[in-house]
Structure formats: structure tokens, C-alpha cells
């Protein structure tokens, strides 16, 4: 198995690592960068637990080979904090009880954040559409929809994600 050098910025921190050609980005983030907030829930890109933002766009990191993410800027759930404060989306999930076991949650929060970057004021249908690729087995989704609507009314995607997206746009 061939090895490759990659430079990936994660949550604002640059890193240079040697990775195996077949390594998935989700494993790179979890193992190499020790950011275990991003979860794995399936082998087939169906569940969305591994959703992160790469250069301003949400992707399922279990479908991305680390080598193809060379040179990118990645934002994970750990990067959404705003000086120790949760982002509006994170706060919305707490306020509206949008999580139970919390396993799908990091991916769900990233998808919701991505949705609010694109559509700052989505209606319920748009929210359901926006998180359709993220499966949650605990909540039945209703309160997740409420959470995202709450976030839209209280600051949207948040400053960290907005800055990340703007940076990606600019580069």
C-alpha cells in the first residue's frame, strides 16, 4: 500500500502527515488528528454521522480518501465553538432537545450548519430536505427540525462556520 504526504488544515490548525492511500478521511480525523467528534455509523455513506465541512461544503468523510483532501481546509464539530461558547446550531439542539444518545449529533450539527450557510431561513420542508442524508435513530427528527429553526432565528450557521466558508470561497 502506497503512502502519501498530505497537508490538511483542520479547525484552523495546519498538519502535515504521511497517510496510506486507502485511508478514509474520517479515520484520518479520528486517528491521526485525534478529533473523535466525527463519528462512523455505516460503511455505505448512508448515515451522515461522519459529516464534516471541507472547503466550506459538507461532505461525508467516510467517502473521502484522505489523499484527495490534500490541501483542503476541514471544519469538524470541534471547530464550531466560538471562544468556548457553542454555536447557534449547537445551542439550538440543546434548547429544543434535538439529540438523545448524541451519536448522530456531530454529523447532524454539521449538516444543519451547512444548510444554514446556504439557506439562512429554511422552512420545515427545506430543513427536512437539508438533513435527509443524516440518520438519527433516537429522536424521530421532529425536534431536530425545531432545533435548526431555532438556530436560524438565533444567529444561523455561526461565526466559525461562516468564516470557514468565506475563507474557502476566497482561496
Amino acid at each position: 500500500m502506497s503512502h502519501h504526504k498530505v497537508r490538511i488544515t483542520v479547525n484552523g490548525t495546519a498538519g502535515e502527515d504521511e497517510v496510506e492511500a486507502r485511508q478514509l478521511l474520517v479515520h484520518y480525523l479520528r486517528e491521526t488528528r485525534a478529533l473523535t467528534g466525527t463519528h462512523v455509523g455505516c460503511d455505505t455513506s448512508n448515515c451522515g454521522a461522519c459529516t464534516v465541512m471541507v472547503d466550506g461544503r459538507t461532505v461525508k468523510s467516510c467517502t473521502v480518501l484522505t489523499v484527495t483532501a490534500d490541501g483542503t481546509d476541514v471544519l469538524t464539530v470541534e471547530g464550531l465553538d466560538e471562544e468556548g461558547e457553542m454555536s447557534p446550531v449547537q445551542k439550538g439542539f440543546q434548547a429544543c432537545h434535538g439529540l438523545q444518545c448524541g451519536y448522530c449529533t456531530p454529523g447532524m450539527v454539521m449538516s444543519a450548519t451547512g444548510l444554514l450557510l446556504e439557506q439562512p431561513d429554511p422552512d420545515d420542508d427545506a430543513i427536512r430536505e437539508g438533513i435527509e442524508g443524516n440518520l438519527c435513530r433516537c429522536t424521530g427528527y421532529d425536534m431536530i427540525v425545531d432545533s435548526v429553526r431555532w438556530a436560524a432565528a438565533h444567529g444561523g450557521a455561526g461565526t466559525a462556520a461562516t468564516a470557514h466558508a468565506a475563507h474557502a470561497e476566497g482561496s
Partner: protein
Amino acid sequence: MVGASVVRKEDPALLTGRGTFVDDIRLPGTVHMVFVRSYLAHARIVSIDTAEAARLPGVLGVWTHADLEGLPATRSVPGMERPCLATGKVHFVGEPVAVVVATDRYLAADAAEAVVVEYEELPVMASIAAATAEGATPILDGLPSNVVLEQQLSATDAEAELAAAPHRLAFALVNQRCAAVPMEPTVCLSDWQSSGLTIWGTSQTPHHMRNEIAQMFGLSQQEVRFVAPDVGGGFGAKASFYPEFLLTAELSRRLRRPVKYVETRSENMTSMVHGRAQQHDVEVGFDDEGRLLALRVRITQDCGGWPDATGIGLPTLTSFMSGGCYRIPTIAPSFRSVVTNTTPVGSYRGAGRPEASYMIERVVDHVAAELGMDPLEVRRANFVQPGEMPYATQFEGIVYDEADFPGCLDKLLEHVDYEALRTEQAALRNDPEAPLLGIGFSTFVEMGGFGPTPLFEQFGYVGGWESANVRLNVDGSAVIKVGTSPHGQGHQTAFAQIVADQLSVPFERITLIHGDTATVQEGIGTMGSRGVPVGGSAVFKAANKVRDKAIRIAAHMLEADESDIELADGRFSVRGAPQQGVDMAEVAVRAFKPHLLPDGFDLGLDETAFHEPSNLSYPSGAHCCVVEIDRGTGKVRIRRYVAVDDCGTVINPLMAKGQIHGGVAQGIAQALIEEVTYGADGQPGAGTLVDYTLPSSKDLPRYETDHVVTPTSFNPLGAKGLGESGATAAPQAVVNAVVDAMGHLGVRTIDMPCTPQKVWRTLNAALASQSESAHQNGS
């Protein structure tokens, strides 16, 4: 604070990616275990060649059952214990045959691919029909057939009563096999050191796992520590014991390194226990008014390839609950458990009760259709009335607690304009372009608050009680330790609410420790909706013990009589003299000053309590589902879903709503979407999330919820539990609605899941037979 919608304490960590799930735990030197699993459903193992795998880079070893001589089997019914790796034979696709350990998961997976297993195929029996056919090969060695357990749970088979009833109706129901699919699959990490063994695992029952493992290895319990940290959903399926717990432990012992196992989703789909998988043959006798006179249910439980300790008990629970919330003079349940070449079946959200609820709620709708009565009238004619509570069913020990079945239905109808819906339904039927409208009800009762000990022992647990310890620190903050181990239920928050009330300590200053056998002395676990009714009751009792002791200290400090001490806003004061008082922290400090307390006073404010429920609790409710069926495609759209639940005292309405939503979602999914299928060759038709469809945000409706509160007298909180209610109530509400939508065409039944194809076929068959009979009548 009990009754307040406080937001959860557990959320910030989970929302910022700083929760701790098992796979997040990093121990230096950890190596990775990967299974070699059977790709055949039934076969004799001729040989296993591990030589090439063992030579691959990074590989530390490859083991088969023969290399692990003496490793014990998993507890089950005597004679049906499952070995941790297949010995001689495989029973289902996905059964582990060998294990590989390597320095990294990718290398371990490579090596597992290189293990060559030679099989000799045996006849596959992947269904109940095949496993019980004449001349079927027994799957379990040493047994004469695949029917492993048969029981009649009543004195009569009700034949006489059925024959005497004015009307008699027989039909068959299928409660299809479902998968729990917690978003986090099974993961474990074992670290065997000279001081003992520590296992971090995805489990609902850490103490039970500790006990099993200690016994299997002949270790004392203090040498085994089982930790269930954050667990990503369990739904009953994480209450079972899995071979990986034992194998990672054994290999850690041999390799002297921590060994981790992380299941892939496709492994999870064939390896984690499935749920439901029952067939029912039902006969009901009734009179002209729709009163149910006799009910006979013959249940066939598909156990899968190895009978699971809990799975084998499922039809008993179904039998106990077969009367639902109705007064039926004679109920005759019996069951047989059948082994098949499929994944083992165990508990899944509601475990045995949703099956009963589905059956009896389909029965009342069948009776209504037969008599041309309204389904609500049949329900009303049969409800056990509130004045009859507690209601002793014919099954010993099954006594329904306080409930108001008709009251739940009335409350439901406050939300649903039933007459308007029926009018609309009739109008839409006449418009060939419009969808068909269906209205379905479910008035249900189920079991929660699992215990008491004699019942729970049967499932292999030490007891049916739960334990809690409450400790007041010297600064007046509090720590709770509980034996229940949550996986999304919000125990941190709910239990802190209970203690905040009892001790008048601010909610923010209370923390919870759970899921670690090194810190929590004893516990049973979280399943059977026992978190609040049993765990919460133990917390309540422990907090009260602390409170009583604190009052004694305060009385001493204030030189007052104990009976005159009042506790409010964290301050103890003397009744009638509110200026005279001491606060909680002062009392807590004093608890450690022997020279300032009466002689012989037991120091500290640290109390443990157990709660043994004297009975199960019986959550109940009434749900209504309104569906629209597209005539062209057969697609069922849920237009409204209204749930009225009676779970007794509600600790936190926000979390209660969440639990109802989640359960209803799983129930709707069972009714419309989910099914684990097998080919005749035992190959799973649902091995990934591509072919096993979980509902997404677009597949599910908004839910409307409300409560009737009838506190149970069987525990001090009055809480009945509600984790399983939604999954128990929803399937029949949906299916009754689907059948109702086509009722005018003579449709009486449809099996779950009501997929568009199945509904479309049912609809068109009904239309065809209708036009045929119209044709015959006309000619």
C-alpha cells in the same frame, strides 16, 4: 424541578464532539481485532487455514475455536449455549468463525480476508416454515427438532368458549423481523492487566456484563471492571452479551495489550440481535355488541441461529399482554420457539409487548369490520374501566396498575375531529383523483419499570431492583451514582431533577456517575423502561435518606426538634422562626465534625438505597394516525400522528416528548418501511443501510403529543416509564389506518411493512374483485 422542561446536562459534551464513546478511547499499544465471519447460513466447517493470514504485516495472531480451548459459551437455555467462535458448524450468515488481531484495523481486515475456511454446506432453513417442515434437519446439535421450546400459558385452549360465542373469527398476523440499528454499532476495548480486566463496551447493562465475564473467566468481580461510557443508542439490542466482549478480553490476556473491536455496519446488521420475528394465529369469539368473549393466540417465535437469553423470553411477554386494555373473559395464549438459520433474535424496543399490542389492536379492528361497527365503539365496549384498577389479569403477577384507558381515548379525541375526518374520508372515496384517507387507532397498554426480581431473574439478571447512591459534598454540591446505564435517555438530567427537589440543592450542582462497575457498586441496567420508575425511585429513596440525616444534623445545630426543621431553597430553618437557620453546605461540613455532633453519630452524608418494584408498571395511551394512500403508487403518507400517553408522573416533559417521538418513529418505520429479510439460502436481504431502509427526516411526519397523568402507586415517584410506549403503540395505529383506507373495498388485512408495492397490490386486488363481483351481479 420534577415536571419542569429543563434542557439536558449531557448535551454540551455531545454537541461539541467531546463525548466519550468506546471507539474514542485511546490506550497506548492498542491492537485491533477483526472477525472472519461465515458467508454461509448453515454449514459444517471442514477446515480453517490461517497460515497466510498469520504471515501478513502487522498481524499478531489468528485464532479459531480450537485455539481457544476452554473459552466458555454464552449463557442461554441449558443445552443451547452459544460458543464465542463457531465450533464445527455455522448457524447463520455472519456468525464469527475466526479472529485476527493486527496493529491497525486496515491490516487486520486484510488478514481476515486471507483466512480460508472450507465448508460443507448443510440444508438451510431460513424461515419458520422451513425449520419446522417435515424432516427438517435440527440446527442445534443434540436436539430432536428446531422447535426448542413449547408452552401453553393458560389452563384452557378456549375452544369451548370460542365455539359458544355468537361470532368467531380466525386470522394470521406477522410481526416482521426488525433490526434495532443503533447509530453506534457494537464496540469494545479490553485491557487485561495483572491487576485485573477492564472492558469498555457498548452495553446497556454493565454490571450484568461484569458478572457474566467474571464468571466465565473464573475471576472475582472486583477483578473485572466494565465501563459503558457514552453509548450511541441501544434499543434493547445492547442488553445482550456478544462474543466480542469475551474474545477481546481473552486476546488481551494472551497478547498483554489492549485489544479493540469495532463492528462495521454490515457486520452489525447480521451480528447484533434482531427483534420481533413472530407469527400469530389468532381466533377471537365475540357477541353482537362487539364484546370480546374469548381469545386464542398461537405465537411462533423465530429465535434465529442461537436462542438468546432474553430472546427466548419474548413470547412469554407477548402472551402476558395479549389481552391489551380489554376485559376478555378467556384468553388462551401458547407459543413455540423455533431455531432458524438466521441472526439470533433478542430484545428490541418493547421486546415482546409491541407484538401483543399489535395483535390485540388488529383484533378489535377486525371485529369492528366484521360487525360493521365503528372501531372506537368496539374499544369502548371492552375497556377495563378506571374503577377496576388495579386490574389482575388472568396471568399470575400481571396486575395492571392505575390507568384510565377510556380517559386516554377521550383526551385523544379532543385533538382529533373524528366526525370531520370520517366525512372527508367518504368524500375522498368518491373522487378517483384524490388519495384514499384512512384513520387508525391504537389504545394500548404495555409493561414498564421492569422488575420485580422473580420475573427479572428469568432473563438472567441478578435482580429486578435498581440501586442508587447520593452523596452530599462538603460544599453542599451532590453526586449521584446509579445502576441504570443510559444510552440517550437523559438520566443525568432526570435524576438531578429528582435530587434537586428532595435535597433542595441547585440542579447545576448535581452530577451523575453511571455505567462503571468500579464506581457504582451494583446495578441491573437500562431496559424495559426501568430508568425512571426503578432507577429514579432508587435515587429518590437515597436522596431521602440523605435528607433525613441532614435534618438530624440541622436540628442538632439549631438546637431544635427534628420535626420542626424545614428545608427550602437550600436552607434548613426552624418552623415558625425562619431567621434561625443553616444552609446545606454548613450542614454538609458539620456531617464530618464528630466533636460537634452527638456521640456515635455516623459521619458523612452518603446514602445508598435500592428500589425493588413490587410490580411492573403499565404505561398506556391512545394514538391516532391519519394516512393518505396514493391510488396510483400505493404510497402511504402520514398526514397526522397524535399520541396521548399515560406514563404516570412526567419528570421532564421535554425529554418525555423526545422519548415518545423516537418510539413512535420506530413504530411507524416498522409499519411502513423496515424488514429484515432472508433468501431461502439464508443470505440476508438487508445487510447494510442501503438495503435496510431506516426512515429519514423526509419519511416521518410531525408528531402531536399530550398526556393523561395517572400516577402509579407501585413506586414513590408515580412514574411508569415511556421509552417503549411509542414503538408499542404506533405500528397498529398506522396499519389500522392503512386497512381503514381500503376498508370500503373489503380489505381486512395487510402485513407489515406496508410498502407502496404491497399497498398498491392489495388495493388493486380489492378493486379487481369488486369489479368482478359487480360484473357477476350485473350479468
